[in-house]
């Protein structure tokens, strides 16, 4: 099985399209970091408008940790498209090329090939996320320095001490990997149903947009299905950056406000990944390879 996984990884590595996503992420991050380096103070000032009326904030608010959070907020909405470019092409791309019949006449079962392809696509997704993490977190830390993380959410502010931040980012990136793997598996499923990649790529993004709208609209009719939609849970990496408070409204260092929410989201995402992959295997096993 390792043989065919390595073959699939080799094909991804050799293909020029693979590097588009890495380049796009690098370009996006560098541009945003440059913008914030030049004009970040006015951006921070805008965010802290309400706070500055009451309080004086002393310290390096616009530090690498905050920059990373801003980058993740922006990019983790757009990175799914880059993931879909590869994942939604894994099977349909080969069907379109005509090479699917080459690999399906080798002494490995279709299930093995499908699993190998999924593992390879997942590896690509994780590598993309690691690249994102390196640029968004470590390069930001290097360029902007570090300090406490002063997070301005919609309705409240969280101040996380500097030595309490890094492990949260590790947790958030691990969580984000589940979110992106859900996109990978969805793209993979779409790919198993088509003979060219345009449909699956567009289909994957359309599904994400559609379900995101259902997840974010506060309409009672949708509230029944919301807990089961993967898009409802994809952005819960942010839960790593919220603290519990005690009876004296004192934030508890090292705590997470809603651990149960993170666990539930991970379970929902894992179930989605499992269902999408199983469905892909069943579809490919059953279909006649006519391409």
């Amino acid at each position: 099985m390792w043989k065919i996984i390595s073959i699939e990884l080799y094909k991804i590595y050799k293909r020029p399209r693979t590097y588009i996503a890495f380049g796009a992420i690098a370009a996006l991050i560098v541009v945003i970091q440059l913008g914030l380096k030049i004009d970040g103070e006015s951006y921070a000032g805008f965010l802290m408008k309400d706070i500055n009326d009451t309080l004086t904030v002393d310290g390096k608010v616009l530090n690498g940790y905050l920059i990373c959070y801003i980058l993740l907020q922006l990019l983790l909405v757009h990175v799914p498209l880059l993931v879909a470019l590869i994942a939604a092409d894994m099977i349909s791309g080969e069907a379109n090329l005509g090479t699917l019949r080459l690999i399906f006449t080798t002494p490995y079962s279709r299930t093995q090939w499908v699993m190998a392809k999924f593992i390879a696509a997942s590896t690509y997704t994780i590598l993309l996320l690691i690249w994102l993490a390196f640029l968004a977190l470590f390069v930001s830390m290097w360029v902007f320095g570090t300090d406490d993380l002063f997070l301005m959410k919609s309705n409240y502010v969280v101040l996380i001490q500097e030595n309490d931040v890094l492990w949260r980012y590790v947790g958030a990136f691990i969580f984000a990997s589940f979110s992106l793997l859900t996109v990978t598996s969805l793209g993979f499923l779409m790919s198993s149903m088509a003979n060219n990649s345009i449909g699956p790529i567009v289909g994957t993004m359309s599904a994400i947009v559609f379900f995101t709208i259902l997840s974010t609209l506060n309409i009672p009719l949708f509230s029944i299905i919301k807990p089961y939609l993967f898009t409802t849970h994809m952005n819960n990496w942010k839960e790593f950056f919220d603290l519990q408070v005690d009876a004296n409204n004192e934030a508890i260092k090292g705590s997470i406000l809603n651990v149960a929410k993170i666990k539930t989201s991970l379970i929902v995402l894992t179930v989605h990944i499992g269902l999408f992959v199983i469905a892909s295997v069943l579809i490919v096993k059953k279909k006649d390879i006519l391409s």
Partner: protein
Amino acid sequence: MSATKKNKMQASLFYRYFLLIIMTFCINSLDAQSNPLIEKVSQKLSLVNDYTAIGIMKTDVSFIKASLGKVKVYFKKPNLLKIKKEGGISLLPKGGVSVTLNSLLNSKQFIAMESGKQLFKGKELQVIKLIPTDDALDWVISTLWIDASTALVYKTFTTTKDNGTYEITMEYGTYADFGLPSKVIFGFNTKDYKLPNGITLEFGEDDAAVAKQKALRSKKGTIEITYSNYVINKGVSNSMF
């Protein structure tokens, strides 16, 4: 007019001017030096030329979640004060830190008026109101709650010109003899906090629940510093401020 009547009028005017001068003199004399308790407090404060202290700062504002932070506090006469968080971001009430006892009393440009006694945390304290006589000062009125026996101020309530009102509560321990508190609580009014969802990219929240929570929020915040390890009169560089 007859000469007698003229003389009587002149005398009356003279006495009025004399009284006015005396009254003005008297009013001008009704300063810190004339309130013995304020004088005692000032004398106690004058024992300290400078200090450095380590403190633990606790922020209690309804829309802020922050854990305890270690701070270092620097003071130098007459009223230089700096609170520095040891690494990290600190939140302090705007303008409130500067409204300290030293900044109130060192100017000596105020009228002190006793306003009776009040019970505060089990102690009977003398209430004295300070009204500034110098328009340049940035506060409008300040009320002090003072223990007459120890000349320690336990509470101040100050209305500033630009930054609202501040309530400062103090507790004393080991350094009471120097008039230095073991705990200071800065209380202040807070404004509502809100960032648009389009900026924070937080969608899907239950707006009704959030609005309900906000309505329950207190409009007041406190910042509490518990002091330890005062280093008194050992010299503090001006560069600290």
